[in-house]
């Protein structure tokens, strides 16, 4: 039987096990929408295409599945670019389907035409313009395969109108055959042996884990290996939740706003074991002074991540989980007869003691007085305390994001969802929707700022319509706080374009959307507002009027060495 392109696409999605699409209709994809109700796939109508991509991104991260987006040509497609770029930087598996003008008019500057394949070439893992309906099914199959294997990433599939409405015999390929794409999953045993020997010999090792630990599901292996070999662990922003944030070997996050002990330990270590991380500039600071005395091991599924920014002594290309479980097996064999005092390497005690003295700087301390203004850190700590660390936290970008990362002790993977690499304001609210759809019964909280939340606040309508009981905690300081902080510290308090004193009443605004709005203005109200919000089975926006000029500390000035931390 012949099917139309629209029917073929939807059948392909069905066979890939797609349960939900985040989308927004438009001229050239109306055929697809016409057929959508005949499928079992849920469609979530967002209010802006960028939000569709962030929601799909977060759905993918929370669930481990591929996120799917459907938008129209032209502006529909260009509105997805920021979301795609964010997913690309954070290695999130997405399939973004865009409509395109009919093949016959491509290149003619037709109505709602853009060269979206050209535009997104550098921010997708790969992209396709499907020119013939005969290659549609194969392309969709490849798209899902590419998105979800190797280093995951967004794939864009551009579908011209005539391909969508054309007809052909449907055959879904069983297998993907691509001569040029064979990601390496198996870590080389010889390299693992070399790495393990270094780890066993090292007196001052540190594990530096990134998002790869979460996407490969390697958190158990990571924890077991760290415990067995008594190696302290720090993670990147993307790696939070990949190692229990309450563990005695936990150093906290490293980098620009990392803890004192994490940055000091990394600077002083004799062996850095990087797992699924990419030596981002926010982590390394000044490259010449990053880990000057350390040997380095780097495990990553993407060979281009290895030796991109720093030289590596033992490169290991492979899946993080595969590599860590092999290393763990070696550790179990070698150490089964040894006493575990201070770990396999014997003399780790002095290193752990040194780290303990660094911890005692308490770099994440702040003071909350009863009658002073609400401290934003206090709000995050209260969210942690009340949710017992079991909520899924999404964030916007800026101070809110850093405080969430610093003060919520993430203990489980896939519970912290943030725009890490791109640092994309407006991410948190749509991300909360995606996470809530992936986990309808979990408490999902967007820790937001008053700047970022206004970048995609229209998604409150999506939350209300779809009965998604997400909670938004706005740390409202009436500033673009992170940039204001830069201006305070590095620009002699010359505040330019960072005041947001002219803002909507977030409580009334929430109510206007049909959500619930709550406000806390005094420290004593914080807990009450949070408790009330968590008990409401509807979307709630909480407006926390926090100390206006609170800064995120520790802070390392951009481009400085990581030991050069401002502590307050």
């Amino acid at each position: 039987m012949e099917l139309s392109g629209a029917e073929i696409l939807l059948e392909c999605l069905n066979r890939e096990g797609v349960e939900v699409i985040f989308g927004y209709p438009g001229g050239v994809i109306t055929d697809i929408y016409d057929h959508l109700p005949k499928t079992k796939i849920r469609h979530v109508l967002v209010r802006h295409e960028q939000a569709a991509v962030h929601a799909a991104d977060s759905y993918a991260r929370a669930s481990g599945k591929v996120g799917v987006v459907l938008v129209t040509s032209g502006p529909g497609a260009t509105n997805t670019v920021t979301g795609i770029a964010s997913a690309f930087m954070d290695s999130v598996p997405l399939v973004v389907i865009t409509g395109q003008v009919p093949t016959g008019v491509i290149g003619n500057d037709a109505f709602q035409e853009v060269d979206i394949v050209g535009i997104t070439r550098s921010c997708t893992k790969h992209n396709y313009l499907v020119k013939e309906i005969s290659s549609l099914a194969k392309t969709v199959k490849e798209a899902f395969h590419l998105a979800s294997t190797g280093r995951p990433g967004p794939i864009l599939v551009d579908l011209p109108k005539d391909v969508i409405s054309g007809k052909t015999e449907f055959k879904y390929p069983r297998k993907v055959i691509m001569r040029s794409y064979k990601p390496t999953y198996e870590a080389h045993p010889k390299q693992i042996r070399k790495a393990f020997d270094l780890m066993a010999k090292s007196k001052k090792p540190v594990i530096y884990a990134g998002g790869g630990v979460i996407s490969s599901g390697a958190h158990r292996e990571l924890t077991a290996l760290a415990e067995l070999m008594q190696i302290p662990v720090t993670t990147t922003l993307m790696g939070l939740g990949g190692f229990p944030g309450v563990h005695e070997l936990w150093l906290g996050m490293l980098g620009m706003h990392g803890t004192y002990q994490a940055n000091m330990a990394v600077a002083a270590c004799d062996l850095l074991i990087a797992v699924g991380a990419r030596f981002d500039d926010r982590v390394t600071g000044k490259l010449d002074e990053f880990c000057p005395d350390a040997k380095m091991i780097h495990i990553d599924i993407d060979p281009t991540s290895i030796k991109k920014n720093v030289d590596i002594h033992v490169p290991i290309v492979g899946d993080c989980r595969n590599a860590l479980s092999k290393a763990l097996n070696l550790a179990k064999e070698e150490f089964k007869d040894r006493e575990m005092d201070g770990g396999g390497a014997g003399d780790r005690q002095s290193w752990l003691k040194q780290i303990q003295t660094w911890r005692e700087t308490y770099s994440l301390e702040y003071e909350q007085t009863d009658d002073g203004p609400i401290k934003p850190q206090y709000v995050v700590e209260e969210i942690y305390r009340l949710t017992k660390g079991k909520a899924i936290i999404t964030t916007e970008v800026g101070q809110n994001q850093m405080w969430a990362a610093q003060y919520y002790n993430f203990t489980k993977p896939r519970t912290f969802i943030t725009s890490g690499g791109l640092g994309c304001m407006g991410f948190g609210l749509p991300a909360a929707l995606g996470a809530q759809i992936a986990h309808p019964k979990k408490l999902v909280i967007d820790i937001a700022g008053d700047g970022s939340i206004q970048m995609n606040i229209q998604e409150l309508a999506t939350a209300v319509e779809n009965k998604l009981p997400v909670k938004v905690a706005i740390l409202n300081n009436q500033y673009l706080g992170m940039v204001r902080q830069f201006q305070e510290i590095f620009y002699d308090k010359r505040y330019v374009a960072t005041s947001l004193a002219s803002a909507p009443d977030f409580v009334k605004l929430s109510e206007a959307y049909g959500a619930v709005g709550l406000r806390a203005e005094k420290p004593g109200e914080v807990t009450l507002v949070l408790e009330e919000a968590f008990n409401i089975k509807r979307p709630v926006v909480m407006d926390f009027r926090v100390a206006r000029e609170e800064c995120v500390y520790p802070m390392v000035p951009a481009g400085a060495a990581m030991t050069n931390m401002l502590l307050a």
Partner: protein
Amino acid sequence: MMNNENRTISVLVDNEPGVLSRVTGLFSGRGFNIESLSVGETLDPTISRITLVTSGSPLIVEQIIKQLRKLINVIKVVDLTNTEFVEREMLLIKVRAEAASRAEVLRIVDIFRCKVVDASPHFYTVEVTGSESKIKAVLDLLAPLGIEEIVKTGKIAIARSRK
């Protein structure tokens, strides 16, 4: 960057629209150099070969090769620089050839085994094929006679067969 040296890299890619732009976009997006580039179909019409000459420190060149391999349409990347290979580029030179200098042009053409492929009352167009150094030598000798215009191809290269 220290130790910058030219590297000749051979890249086999899917012969599809847009692939070249993925390769050149990678270079421009990441700030890598392209000194020269040439593309053509291989014996297998579904595969094209891109020969490109680039430069950078050893770490950068390693990164360039890895990034090329990461592109989905790239099938194989070989750095020919450290192997035995034959390289050629071609140059068309429009050189002034008046009565007084014609003989000199022809002598140089002869020495370097070039060819005159077009002649007009005032100009000869000379075709030179060879290595970079030969092409430079021909240019140096013809320059005093008056070069009007040149057109140069990118470099192409092939590994030598094992003896």
